[in-house]
C-alpha cells in the first residue's frame, strides 16, 4: 500500500507539463523585441502619429480577450455536459486571462481614441460590446468565487452566454455605424508595419497561453489536493 509520507518516484518528463513555462520563456525576448520594433524601428503613422503605436498592443489583446471568452464558453459547455472538473478549471483560467487582456483593451483603447478622435470613449458598438464582454467575464469570476455551492453550473451557463456575445461584437461593425476602423484594419497595414505587428501578436499570444497554462495547472493541482485530502480523510476515519 502506498504510504503518503514516503517520497514518490519522479514522474516521467512530459512536454505538456512544461509548455506554459516554455511559452513564458519564449514570450520574454519576443516582447522585448516587439517593444523595440514598435517604438524604435517603426515610423509614426501619417494621420494618427505616435498614438497609433498602441494599435500593436491593443488589437492583439482584443483578439486574445475574445479568444479566451470563446475558450471559457466552450470549456463551460464541456463542464456542463460531461461534469468535468478539468473543463471547469480550463473555463476559470480562460476567464481570468480574458479579464486581464480585456482590461488591457479597455485601458489602451481610450488612450488611442483620445489621441485619434479627440475623445476617449465614443460609445460606438464595438467599444461598448467589448466592455460588456469584459463585464460578463467579471460576473463569471464573481459567481465562481462568491457563488453558492451549486453555482458552478450557473457560472458555466453564464460563460456560454458570454461566448455568444463574441460574434455580436463582429456583427456590430456591420450592423451599426461605428467610428472604429473597419475590420480590414490589419489587412490595410503597409508592409513595414506587418513586420512589427506579428512579433507583438506572437509575444502576447505566448504570454497569454503561458499564463493560461500555469493557471490551469494551479487549479488542477487544487483539485488533486482536494481528492488527496478526501482519500486521507477516508483512511483516517476507517483506522
Amino acid at each position, binding site marked *: 500500500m502506498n504510504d503518503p509520507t514516503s517520497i514518490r518516484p519522479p514522474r516521467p518528463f512530459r512536454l505538456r507539463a512544461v509548455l506554459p513555462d516554455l511559452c513564458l520563456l519564449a514570450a520574454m525576448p519576443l516582447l522585448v523585441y516587439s517593444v523595440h520594433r514598435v517604438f524604435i524601428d517603426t515610423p509614426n503613422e501619417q494621420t494618427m502619429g505616435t498614438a497609433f503605436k498602441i494599435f500593436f498592443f491593443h488589437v492583439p489583446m482584443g483578439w486574445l480577450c475574445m479568444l479566451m471568452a470563446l475558450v471559457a464558453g466552450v470549456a463551460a459547455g464541456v463542464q456542463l455536459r460531461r*461534469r468535468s472538473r478539468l473543463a471547469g478549471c480550463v473555463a476559470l483560467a480562460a476567464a481570468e486571462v480574458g479579464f486581464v487582456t480585456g482590461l488591457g483593451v479597455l485601458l489602451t483603447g481610450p488612450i488611442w481614441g483620445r489621441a485619434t478622435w479627440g475623445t476617449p470613449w465614443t460609445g460606438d458598438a464595438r467599444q461598448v460590446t467589448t466592455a460588456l464582454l469584459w463585464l*460578463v467575464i467579471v460576473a463569471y469570476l*464573481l459567481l465562481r468565487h462568491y457563488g*453558492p455551492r451549486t453555482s458552478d453550473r*450557473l457560472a458555466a451557463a453564464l460563460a456560454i452566454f458570454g461566448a455568444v456575445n463574441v460574434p455580436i461584437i463582429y456583427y456590430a461593425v456591420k450592423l451599426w455605424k461605428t467610428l472604429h476602423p473597419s475590420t480590414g484594419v490589419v489587412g490595410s497595414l503597409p508592409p513595414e508595419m506587418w513586420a512589427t505587428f506579428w512579433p507583438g501578436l506572437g509575444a502576447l499570444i505566448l504570454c497569454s497561453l503561458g499564463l493560461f497554462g500555469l493557471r490551469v495547472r494551479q487549479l488542477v493541482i487544487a483539485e488533486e489536493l482536494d481528492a488527496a485530502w478526501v482519500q486521507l480523510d477516508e483512511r483516517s476515519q476507517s483506522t
Partner: protein
Amino acid sequence: MRLLRQAALLLRSELRQELRDFELVLTAGFFTVVLLAMFYLSFASLQQRAHLGAIPGLMWLTIAFVGVLTLTRVFDREREADTLRALLAAPVDRLAIYVAKAAMTLAVLMICCAVLVPGLWLIFPAGAAFAAAPGSTALLALLGCAGYVAIGTLFAAGLATGAGKNTLLFVILYPLTTPVLMYALVTTRALLDGDPALPSYLGQMAALDVILFAAACLLFETVLVGAAGPRRSSSSARRARPSGQVPRDMSREPAP
C-alpha cells in the same frame, strides 16, 4: 403537448397567486412610476433635441431595473418555500417551469411598459412617435422584454434552487442582458427617428430572441439539476489515488 399543458397550468397558478394580492404588478408598476418621476426631475429641463436621444436609454434602463426586481420576486416565492424543488421532483417537464416563469415575468414587464411608454411620452414630447406607431411600439416592447426575460429567467431559477444570493442576480443579469437591451435601444431610436430600416431591426431582435430562448431552454435543466452520468475527475487526480483503490464507478461496470 404535455409541455404546453403543464406550462399553462403553472402559469395559471402564478396568475392565481398574483391576482390574490397583486404584489408583483403593484411593486413593479410603482417602481416604474418612481423611475419616471426621477427621469422627469433629472432630464425634463434638457432641450427637446436631447430628449430624443435620452428616451431609448431611459426606457430600456427602466426595463433593466424593473426586470431584476420582477425576477427576484417571481422566484422569491419559490425560494421561500422551496417549491421549485418540489416541481423538479414531480413528473413535470422541467422546461414547463421555465416557460411558465418566463411568461409570468414577461406579462409583468409588458404591464410596466404600458405605464412606461405613455409616461415617457407625457414627460418628453419627443416621445410622440410612440403614439404615432402603436403597433411597432408594442412589438418593440414585446421583443425587447422577451429577450431580457429569456436570459433572466434561466439565471434567476439557477440562483433560486440553491442557497443563492439575490445580489448575484444583479451582478449576472446586467452585463448579460445589455446586448439585448442595446438592440432594443437602437431599434427604439430607429422608431423615434422614423428610420425606414425599423422592420429590419425588429426582425433581427426577433431572431436574437429565438436564439436566446433556444439556448436557455437547452441549458435550463442542466443548470438546475446537472447533467446525467458520473463526474469525470482529471486524469492526474485519478493517478493520485493509491493503486488498487479505483473508485467504484459502477455505472461503467456490466450489470450483474
